[in-house]
């Protein structure tokens, strides 16, 4: 059973600019000549940090996005996949993290959506139910196919999706963090299923960050880092420290400015905050002049924590104290007036108001400062825009330019300018340098250092470990909705150490 099901060679995907065209003449790509194969009857684990390219690579295999370079071969034949359905026709099934079902339909109707069986011109519900039940039984699942999907647990919904995928006679199954919301017992059931699929000759790609889980399941493990394949090992040779080094061991050839000093005043204190009723309580502090980093995978709760602090996301317990006052139920407006600022990671829908100009966006969070007697003063606004355009080096024809026409990096600078204009005392940044060129990144790092130096407390979420470690005075590592480690800056704070916590949790830190 050694047939090669999938062979991906030299897969490349460029970063796309604001104009929709790929940026080709740069070293920085989403995927850079990545090779990946999958044999029949194997579970191939794929690991990497945020932004390593694992999802993109699998989306290409799943037909969801096309590659910009490289070749895909299925069972030895060169293939160009048009879309996800085409991939499915070729026997590739993708089980996403966000499940792809209609909650208002029952199991059978979901499984046969678009190919409802007919008998004498009329929909044959009985045949549909029977075939669904059959498919589920093949996965050792005895769900009644007439159950509405909304009433199923996440694990059950996942089984329905897998059964649906199996019904297309898939040979390749891609699973993206499938155990994220499952209980231990449900994970066992899922793993039994995966083993069975393996012995049936299927090839399974398993994306995960939970080392302790896939140790017993995988046959091979491949590591991606910054869009490149870093290495591939049989699971028998798997050694956590070595793999972590492959995931995070990049040379930090960059000096990060650090001229600020941490003050003594406690600006932000989070006590016992639960993001959901089922996640552990979070404790966190940020002092005046301190830069605190928040590391962890996408989905570990970093953004949710930031939004809970900023009053736009309800939480299930605990409290937030800002400058000594309990701010648990304060509105964003009130928090902004008290000096809190939040730069969201989603700048298109949460950072910028598309449809307005640079000037109007810059003043939006501090309109009182540029108004006289309730009327917005053009003069004050224009002075403000000019100042920030210069200070942040925003490349634009004028302050009247629509923000939709700016490049990603410049858009980010406008959002940053908006928050700086409020003269904050606590600045929460969510991926502040995402999508920005190297030069601008360095500028922003310098800016953060200066801001901290002027006494502002900074809480920064970043998926770029070198940046996170380089700038922060202290780092909290989050995993699955809770904080599992607090690390101070120093020789012991390495990228590998952070990844270690992410992949192993607290129950397995390799070195203290």
């Amino acid at each position: 059973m050694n047939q090669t099901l999938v062979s991906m060679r030299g897969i490349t995907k460029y970063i796309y600019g604001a104009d929709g065209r790929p940026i080709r003449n740069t070293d920085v790509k989403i995927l850079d000549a990545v090779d990946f194969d999958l044999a029949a009857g194997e579970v191939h684990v794929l690991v990497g940090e945020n932004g390593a390219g694992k999802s993109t690579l699998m989306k290409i295999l799943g037909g969801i996005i096309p590659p910009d370079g490289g070749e895909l071969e299925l069972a030895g034949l060169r293939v160009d996949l048009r879309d996800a359905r085409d991939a499915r026709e070729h026997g590739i099934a993708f089980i996403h993290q966000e499940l792809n079902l209609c909650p208002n339909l029952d199991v059978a109707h979901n499984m046969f959506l678009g190919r409802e069986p007919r008998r004498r011109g009329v929909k044959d519900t009985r045949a549909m139910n029977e075939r669904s039940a059959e498919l589920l039984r093949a996965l050792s699942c005895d769900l009644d196919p007439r159950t509405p999907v909304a009433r199923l647990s996440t694990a059950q919904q996942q089984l329905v999706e897998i059964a649906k995928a199996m019904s297309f006679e898939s040979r390749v199954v891609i699973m993206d963090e499938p155990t994220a919301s499952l209980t231990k017992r449900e994970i066992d059931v899922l793993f039994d299923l995966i083993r069975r699929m393996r012995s049936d000759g299927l090839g399974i790609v398993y994306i995960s960050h939970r080392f302790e889980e896939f140790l017993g399941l995988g046959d091979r493990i491949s590591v991606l880092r910054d869009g490149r394949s870093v290495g591939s090992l049989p699971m028998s040779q798997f050694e956590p420290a070595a793999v972590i080094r492959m995931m995070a061991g990049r040379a930090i050839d960059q000096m990060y400015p650090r001229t600020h000093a941490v003050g003594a005043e406690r600006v932000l204190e989070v006590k016992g905050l639960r993001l959901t009723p089922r996640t552990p309580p979070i404790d966190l502090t940020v002092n005046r002049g301190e830069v605190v980093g928040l590391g962890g995978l996408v989905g570990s709760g970093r953004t949710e924590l930031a939004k809970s602090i900023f009053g736009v996301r309800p939480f299930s317990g605990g409290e937030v104290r800002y400058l000594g006052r309990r701010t648990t139920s304060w509105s964003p407006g009130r928090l902004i007036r008290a000096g809190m600022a939040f730069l969201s990671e989603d700048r298109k829908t949460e950072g910028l108001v598309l449809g307005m100009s640079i000037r109007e966006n810059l003043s939006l969070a501090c309109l009182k400062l540029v108004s006289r007697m309730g009327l917005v003063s053009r003069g004050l606004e224009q002075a403000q825009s000019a100042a920030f355009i210069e200070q942040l080096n925003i490349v634009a024809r004028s302050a009247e330019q629509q923000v939709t026409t700016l490049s990603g990096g410049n858009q980010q600078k406008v959002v940053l300018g908006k928050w700086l204009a409020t003269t904050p005392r606590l600045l929460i940044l969510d991926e502040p340098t995402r999508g920005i060129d190297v030069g601008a990144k360095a500028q922003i790092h310098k800016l953060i250092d200066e801001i901290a130096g002027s006494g502002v407390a900074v809480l920064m979420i970043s998926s770029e470990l070198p940046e996170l470690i380089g700038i922060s005075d202290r780092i909290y590592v989050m995993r699955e909705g809770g904080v599992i480690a607090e690390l101070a800056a120093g020789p012991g704070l390495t990228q590998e150490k952070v990844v270690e916590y992410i992949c192993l949790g607290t129950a397995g830190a390799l070195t203290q």
Partner: protein
Amino acid sequence: MTREPMNLRALIGRNVSLFIFLVLAVCAACFVHNFADRDNLVIILKQSAIPATACIGMTMVLMTGGIDLSLGYIVGLCSIVSGILAKSLLLPAPEVVLIVLAVGGAIGLANGLITQYMRVPAFIATLGSGYVIYGLAQIVSQGSIINRLPKPFLAIGRTDLLGLPSAVFIALGVALVFHVLISKARFGRQLRAFGFGPRAALLSGVPTARINVLVYALCGTLAGLSGMLFTIRVNAAQPNMGGGVFTFEVVTAAIVGGTSLFGGIGSVAGSILGVLSIKIIENCINLLGVSYHLYLAVQGAIILVAIIFGNMTNRRA
């Protein structure tokens, strides 16, 4: 979209409402007999004052991405209320004005609260409240119309100034106030931000809930004012005044005036031009002796054209 050329197409694109108005005015003056007579133009202005007042309110609601389908019914209720207050209860004119505005404002406030806090979609909330208001208006009037209203009350809108009735100047004053409010004041900036990007606005500290409720309250107040002016103009207070047809006319005017159904885009100046434009059309239909009912169908066609045209030049996905 990336260049800002100063050619004719861009010029028209940025001032569509003015362009439409000018084209209509010129065509009417050229092709319709008697259109350009002074008396006729005065009539157009007099007829525009009433929907213009209401249109300003509707514009603000549309700018938040909502709609007020009860507007025409608020007009009817406030019409009969003003009649009762002025004639049956013989209240002095200033008090009548205050109470009518308060009634309109209260209904608008209810609409806003239902939409914002009960999370009922605007079109359903105002459709339902419109029904309720219509019923209340009928009940309050007990089926009768009140005419021959007291002179001091009528004087609010009928006092002659520079050849035009005071109602026109009231509408103008309201337009001015709200023009400043929407285009220059903090409120207007926040309103536009809310319309374009409600999420980004909320995260930037814009009090979105308060603004959402406020625009409906203002719309209701202006609808009430409009109803009162209408009553004064025809010297009759009746519950059937306004109605769904009036609501539709106001929406048409706002859209012709450049207000976007998706939120964010809208202006008082544009809406006033929109009102004038459709009133010119109505006037021409009258002068040409065509059935008045054509006007209703034409309005619908206008909105369709405006929507289709707007969609093609201003795609907001």
